[in-house]
């Protein structure tokens, strides 16, 4: 199979065009949603039911406590639901889930990771899929949105430590943004041929006496939020490589559009909320530049490998060709989605390395729902710090001074994910019984382990495959890495929001480093790339680079 360059370029152009058209109006809608004072009747009902005061403006610590409590309850519910599957309705005959797998799955879905250490068809019934996992797809994405909105408020507000109301942000994100969009998305997906029914269809071919069951379920509805919320947990084990999850070339491209939609729209919301749209444009430019460069490199890596004679074949999307695989693989790792339409294990080494580097960037281009933008804004603060010193001023970001306080939070943020990914990887390779779970020989086996922990620490959820993570030690380690990789950064971001909100705004002058325009975009892109590259260079050299240059 060869990579069709023209097909690649056409599809990329279509994506860019579609995203280009919707991102401004949709960004304006998001900004209105999160700044409006009005509550919908449905929301008011929910607030009354749960005893939440929607008028309360929360201190960042209260906001964080609400978020953590909510997520803890989410994890517990999903965990218990799986343990009790056997006695709950709609189990389609599936019994209790193994507790290690259950906790891994519960953490995975509540952290927006959607790492799947289970085989859905063989493990979960309709009830768990629809009422637990799909619900988490909405809620974990809404949590991400809430955090980024809180951070933007921290930048906008001054001399307060209150950054909004978590419950209101959560409800609005889920009800006003994700719900309507996923309904539309699901309908489009049904039209492309994604199944939406109450279970498998038995087929008996009388002439041949053959009987088979075509699997089914509420797939389209789950597929839409799987992409929109950058979740990535497939209804079927094969994920978007399964013909019933992703039946046509169009559905494949549409799924990529859905998973890029909200992350690429958030900069427009950000620009509007801070009252300077140029800020949004600059952030968007950096995201788009990484996306285009990475997609192109991925296509090149796949195409070049395909021409070596070995060809790409096994694990690739045979129906559509290599181009949609390259586009999908890039988009899913640059966001925190992790849905796949190609087995990443089968990507040529350099392409696999690129998928890892995409995640190692911190998933900022455009990143997960909410998490992408807040990740990039944290890096923007690092860029502002270095750039600010270079122009001779105490660094300021949108009028907020970046002193030791904010820098500590930012430094910890940048430390967290690499430490989790590298520590997890090195621990696994150091213990033979653990590394035996990745039986592939040489650097490829190492890549599988590195990929797993990078994916978990960055809350991506895609897998290199090959590695078995359902055993208790790895399932627990990955769950822990996902948990810390999600909530430590969130806690730091909310603390940062509170610290920034407490400051008085410094007015802009000609001596202030502008955080918009091509110069800052270059600085931000450079800092983002350098931080990731320097941290992971040796690991990447031992994995994909060693393998790639070997072959």
């Amino acid at each position: 199979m060869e990579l069709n360059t023209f097909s690649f370029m056409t599809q990329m152009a279509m994506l860019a065009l579609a995203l280009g058209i919707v991102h401004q109006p949709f960004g304006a809608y998001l900004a209105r949603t999160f700044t409006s004072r009005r509550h919908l009747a449905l929301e008011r009902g929910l607030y009354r039911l749960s005893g939440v005061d929607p008028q309360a403006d929360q201190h960042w610590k209260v906001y964080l406590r609400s978020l953590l409590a909510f997520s803890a309850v989410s994890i517990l519910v999903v965990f218990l639901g799986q343990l009790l599957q056997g006695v709950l309705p709609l189990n389609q005959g599936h019994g209790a889930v193994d507790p290690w797998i259950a906790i891994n799955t519960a953490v995975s879905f509540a952290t927006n990771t959607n790492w799947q250490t289970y085989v859905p068809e063989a493990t979960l019934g309709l009830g768990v899929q629809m009422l637990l996992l799909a619900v988490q797809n909405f809620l974990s994405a809404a949590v991400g949105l809430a955090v980024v909105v809180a951070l933007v408020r921290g930048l906008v507000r001054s001399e307060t430590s209150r950054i909004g109301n978590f419950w209101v942000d959560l409800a609005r994100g889920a009800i006003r943004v994700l719900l309507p969009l996923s309904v539309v998305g699901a309908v489009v997906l049904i039209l492309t041929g994604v199944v939406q029914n109450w279970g498998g269809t038995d087929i008996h071919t009388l002439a041949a006496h053959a009987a088979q069951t075509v699997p089914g379920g509420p797939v389209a509805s789950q597929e839409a939020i799987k992409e929109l919320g950058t979740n990535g947990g497939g209804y079927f084990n094969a994920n978007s490589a399964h013909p019933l999850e992703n039946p046509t070339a169009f559905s494949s491209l549409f799924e990529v559009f859905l998973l890029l939609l909200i992350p690429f729209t958030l900069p427009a919301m950000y620009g509007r909320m801070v009252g300077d749209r140029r800020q949004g444009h600059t952030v968007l430019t950096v995201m788009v530049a990484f996306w285009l460069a990475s997609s192109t490199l991925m296509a090149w890596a796949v195409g070049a490998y395909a021409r070596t004679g070995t060809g790409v074949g096994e694990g690739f999307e045979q129906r559509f060709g290599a181009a949609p695989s390259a586009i999908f693989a890039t988009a899913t790792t640059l966001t925190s989605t992790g849905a796949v339409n190609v087995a990443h294990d089968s990507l040529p080494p350099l392409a696999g390395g690129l998928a890892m580097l995409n995640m190692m960037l911190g998933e900022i281009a455009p990143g997960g729902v909410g998490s992408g933008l807040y990740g990039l804004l944290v890096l923007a603060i690092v860029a502002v710090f270095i750039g600010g010193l270079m122009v001779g001023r105490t660094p300021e970001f949108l009028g907020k001074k970046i002193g030791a306080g904010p820098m500590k939070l930012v430094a910890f943020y940048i430390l967290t994910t690499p430490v989790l990914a590298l520590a997890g990887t090195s621990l696994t390779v150091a213990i033979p019984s653990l590394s035996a779970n990745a039986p592939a020989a040489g650097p490829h086996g190492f890549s599988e382990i590195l990929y797993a922990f990078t994916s978990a620490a960055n809350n991506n959820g895609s897998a290199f495959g090959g590695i078995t993570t359902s055993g208790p030690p790895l399932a627990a380690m990955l769950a822990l890495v996902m948990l810390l990789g999600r909530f430590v950064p969130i806690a730091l971001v909310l603390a940062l929001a509170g610290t920034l909100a407490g400051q008085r705004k410094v007015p802009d002058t000609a001596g202030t480093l502008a955080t918009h325009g091509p110069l800052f975009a270059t600085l931000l892109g450079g800092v983002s790339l350098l931080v990731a590259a320097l941290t992971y260079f040796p690991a990447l050299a031992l994995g994909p680079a060693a393998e790639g240059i070997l072959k």
Partner: protein
Amino acid sequence: MTLANTLAALPLAVRKLNPRTMVHSPVMFTVLIGSLVCTLVSVQQLAAGSPAAVFSIWVTVWLWLTVLFGNLSEAIAEGRGKAQADSLRAARTSVMARRRVPARVSAPSGAASGLGAGFAEELVAGTDLAVGDIVVCEAGDLVPSDGDVIEGLASVDESAITGESAPVIRESGGDRSSVTGGTRVLSDRIVVRITAASGKTFLDRMIALVEGATRQRTPNEIALNVLLASLTIVFVVCVMALAPMAQFAGALPTPVVLVALLVCLIPTTIGALVPAIGIAGMDRLIQHNVLATSGRAVETAGDITTLLLDKTGTITYGNRRAVEFVPADGVDPRVLAATARLSSLADETPEGRSIVELALPRAGGSGPVTGPVTGPEELTPDVEVIEFSAATRMSGLNLPSGHPANPGTGVLEVRKGAASAVVSYAKERGGFEPQEVEEAVLEISGTGGTPLLVAVFDGGRARILGTIHLADVVKPGMTARFAELRAMGIRTIMITGDNKITAGAIAGEAGVDDFLAEATPEDKLEVIRREQRAGRLVAMTGDGTNDAPALAAADVGVAMNSGTSAAKEAANMVDLDSDPTKLIDVVGIGKQLLITRGSLTTFSVANDVAKYFAIVPALFAATFPGLGLLNIMGLHSPESAILSAVIFNAIIIVLLVPLALRGVKYRAVSAARALSRNLLVYGLGGVIAPFIGIKFIDLAVALIPTIG
């Protein structure tokens, strides 16, 4: 940085190896630990007779040199301050003070004073003086401690602290009443009330400052250290994680190599130079003859967004100057000039002198005042000088008959003064104010100038001859500096006691952004508060006691050394030259400090790219020959590659010490231009330079027998 002061700094650099000192810099402390580990490994390899020992020893030696170079940069910077401190300390030799005490019935020993009844003097050591003590200093005495002159006037040699050899006048009352301990009274006699206890005087603070004894980390330095510490942790984790990963791949490097990789990756360059940059920033300020009470103030200066500048002395010359004579109708301009000159002959004020200067080439002609007008010999003893007084607001001369300038028979009165005063003088003596003179007065006032009228009276009718235009003259170059400041994003506000019209005219001419007319000290304070409420940082200069609250409120307050001790106490900087325009330089020094830190940080981190390309192929190319492709520098061998990276990493510190001490070149340009330039030089340059440097070092290292 000469070889001599580098060598002089060596002992201090070695003393700084003390771990308790080193722990304050997380980056260099990590290098220290790494060096210790490598030393142990080398010793063990040597004992075991391992052939790897030679390489390990080479790396270990260069790691120790890295630590030493870091300390050396700090020691050199401190050494410069030490030299200054020593010369200052010479001025602080123990002084005997003549303390004035209430006289007792039986006067104690000590010189009986000619002070009059009620006081006696006793000799005490300068160090025993307490705040509030009264001491007497006469010609030849060293002033024992800081204080305010409460009686008398004296010329004082302050060269010990300011380096300026010309003596200055210190007198009781007014804004020139403070004296500094360690300065010498040259003439006359003053009585001083001590305001600083021994050990806390200006001189003591200055010594502590230049020695860096009280150096505290500034806010930006702390924030930078947070960033550097976090980068260090990332790389420690990265290298620690690499060990099991490399072992998994079957290519476990030795601990020495891992430490070498770690030291190359952590930002040692900036980590080593941060203290030197801070000390050098303070030092630059001292070279500009400005003393700061803390490094924090220097840093804040770079952030200043509003400058409050006194009009007089800063923007304009201290005094108004005559710029034009406007004659009344029918008056010969030369006559007006001659008369104006006569009227000011006895006027010793700068304004009066400027009138004489302006008139000299213009005077002559005939009229009531004729004759040769050439020199001060016209002030014959029989000429009656009429001094200016606040009541009459006029000054001038009464020329007797027979005086060369008086052709008449009676006394000729020549007057100049404020318009209203001269008009009423003329009217009382039968004169009137010509229409065109009235207009000229209004016009001059309208442009912010001061009109003075010139009148003569020879016994008949007084005549108003015309108007002298006095104007503030903006110092040359000020307009350009304000434009520079604007480009840097700094607002300038001119403060003056003048009325709005005068102030507006000067403000327009000088090109300041805003002005405050008829300003009282309270108004100054209000402007500072207003600017600060808007989130701006304000700097100002001042010298008077009534400036003290504003100096204290400003984010950067620079007091003139000639000012009162109250002003100096309230300010966070003191300008020894008493030059108010220096505030602008201070801002530049503050900015340069930050730019140097930022640029070297960028350079340091950008260097890592090349070091990876040197070390990673060296580590793993044996196991994965394909990774040899990453050896784009074509380094000789794995050992030489690693050693070259370590050597580059150490040498670059030494090479950058002069830059750290001198500061990165600073230009008054907008933030965008400054950033793009520095990014290009230190960012891109930081990526490229080590590729070249490591390659060259490798060529030399390859010649070492066991490594090459």
